[in-house]
């Protein structure tokens, strides 16, 4: 059984990959995927600490998070579809209506 730090390293790596995806992807769906990765990294952390402390509340929390993530993806994809319908693109670089 690996120790806590390796869990945390994996989680940090996943988080970094997710962040990298969010920052570099131009496709809105890709960005959503990046966000998913980041959330999952957090979930790994939660589970790891739950195991460490032997506290089931952390696990419960992780289950909730998975559910919420699913909902978030559903909402995010719906938004992407609506944006595509209106703007005919999902290129994040071109969704700059808020430019100052």
């Amino acid at each position, binding site marked *: 059984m690996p120790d806590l730090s390796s869990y945390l390293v994996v989680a940090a790596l996943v988080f970094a990959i997710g*962040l990298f995806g*969010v*920052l*570099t992807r*131009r496709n809105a769906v890709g*960005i959503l995927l990046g966000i998913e990765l980041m959330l999952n990294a957090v979930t790994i952390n939660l589970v790891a600490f739950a195991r460490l402390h032997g506290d089931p509340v952390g696990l419960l929390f992780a289950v909730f998070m998975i559910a919420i993530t699913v909902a978030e993806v559903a909402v995010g994809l719906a938004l992407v579809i609506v944006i595509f319908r209106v703007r005919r693109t999902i290129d*994040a*670089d071109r*969704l*700059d*209506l*808020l*430019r*100052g």
Partner: protein
Amino acid sequence: MGSPLLVLALPFAAFLLIALVRPLRRRGTAAGWTGITAIALAFIAALQTWLGGVRGQTLLPWLPGDGGPMATVGLLVDHLSVPMLVLVTLVSLLVQLYSLAYLHDEPRASLGRYYAYHSLFAFSMLGLVLSPSYIQMFVFWELVGLCSYLLIGYWYTRPSAAAAALKAFWTTKLGDLGFVAGIVMLWSATGTFEFEALFRMANDQTLPLEGLATIMFLIYLGAVGKSAQFPLHVWLPDAMEGPTPVSALIHAATMVTAGVFLVARSEPLFALVPGVLVLIARVGAFTALLAATMACVERDIKRVLAYSTVSQLGYMMAAAGAGAAAAGFFHLLTHGVFKALLFLGAGAVIHAVGTNDVFRMGGLRRAMPHTAIVFVIGTFALAGVWPLAGFFSKEAVLEGVWNGGMPGVFALLAVTAFLTAFYMFRVVFITFFGRAAVGHGAAAPHGRDAHGHGEAGHAHDPPWLMRWPLWLLAVLTVGIGLSYAFGGSGGGHHPPVWLTVLSLALAGSGILLAWAMHGAGWIDAARVRRALAPIDFLARRRYFLDAIFGGLYRGLMLGIARLIGFLDRYVVDGLLNVVSAWTLRAGDVLRRIQTGRPPDYVYGVSFGVLLLLVLAQWWRSP
């Protein structure tokens, strides 16, 4: 105290009515009759006060203070205020009646405004004379100043009238500054504004004498401004820019008399500071002579009268300064009557001829016999010829000054008496006698009251509405004189014979000289002018006093104004402009951060979190 209150309230009611009821104001003549009715009733009430012998004082608390009110308001009816009530209401009444005919060409709304000002003016002056305390007097004092500003600048579209109004306002304000400072200092020294309390303290010798001279000098400064004493007399001749009836009002009953009234009212206090009294007498006598010389060379009939007012005010002040304030006050009353007469007469002439220049009149005696007679009566009174009103008051002044032990002042006043007779009869001979001036038919009338009815040839006596105020004043002038000559109103008091002879001789020689120069032509006026070249030169240029004041005004006031304008425009506004410009530019630069692209925001958030983490570590580690 019913009738004095009525005297005060009626003109104010008229003012409110005319000022607030728009249809009344827009229909000028109706406003005129409103004002006239009110002032007529006020005159009757004033007469009732006078004849009924109402005296007394009413006080109401005004400003609350520790241990009794700090200031009071009320009415003070005594031997000074009652004659003033009668004079002010009488002159106001006659002037308002006269104005109705004089200003018949004015636009109706404008006439309504005129009568509103007139009623307010009468109210202010009546309030001033009825004031039982300095503080109330000051309030009405300023109201009087305001009203004179409004009336002098009545034809405000004319730049010269607007400038004259401003000049009058500023010049009198200069004196008022001293007045208000004096009142406050007097209050801090004694703790009261009320005349009665102050006079009681002066009587009991409990008044702190230390610093009193400064205080009384400051209060006197207010009178200098209002009563056109040297060197603040410059506004009064310019005030001729107002309509002629306004001049009559200002010169006879309201405004300029306020200063003399103030000195007469404060006499018990002035009596404690002989140094200031001497100053008052000297300045008064000097003013009298200075103004008389300027009147001798003036061509404008109204300005001659204006300078003569300045001169006569100098007389009154000199009397007050010599300790004969009663004589000065007496002169104030008689002068009020015959100066109103002279101004209204001059107004009738200007109305008929359409010019102010005496050399473009001439021979008006035939065309306007009524005006000529009353004007000559007024002139005799002003020159001080027995048995007219002016003779007795002038003699009383001279006697008072002589008894006051001021031979220098007396000599100045005596010379002034001679000059007064001269310049007034100069005007009379040029205007009413002699031939009709050559060529005044060709030149277009350029009168200030520019609604003349043609040239001297077609001039005629004014309508009855203007004529009978003139006659009434003339009758009064003669009547007051006769009552003193034969009725013994002087209380059996007779001045020394030599003084009577002297004043008659002075007046007579003045008249004779005027006749010789401008009536019979025995003496060539041009040669006299050459012989007295330096004085003539100075007098014609008004001793450069107007120029000096103008220079001071332009140099000092406008200089300061320009400096402040510069500060405001470039420093205050500049700072604001710089700040706003920077804000704009900063916004312009900073808005580029907002790219609108989502990844950039995520970059920002990530970087920010990273930064916070690093900082938090830093914070913790040491």
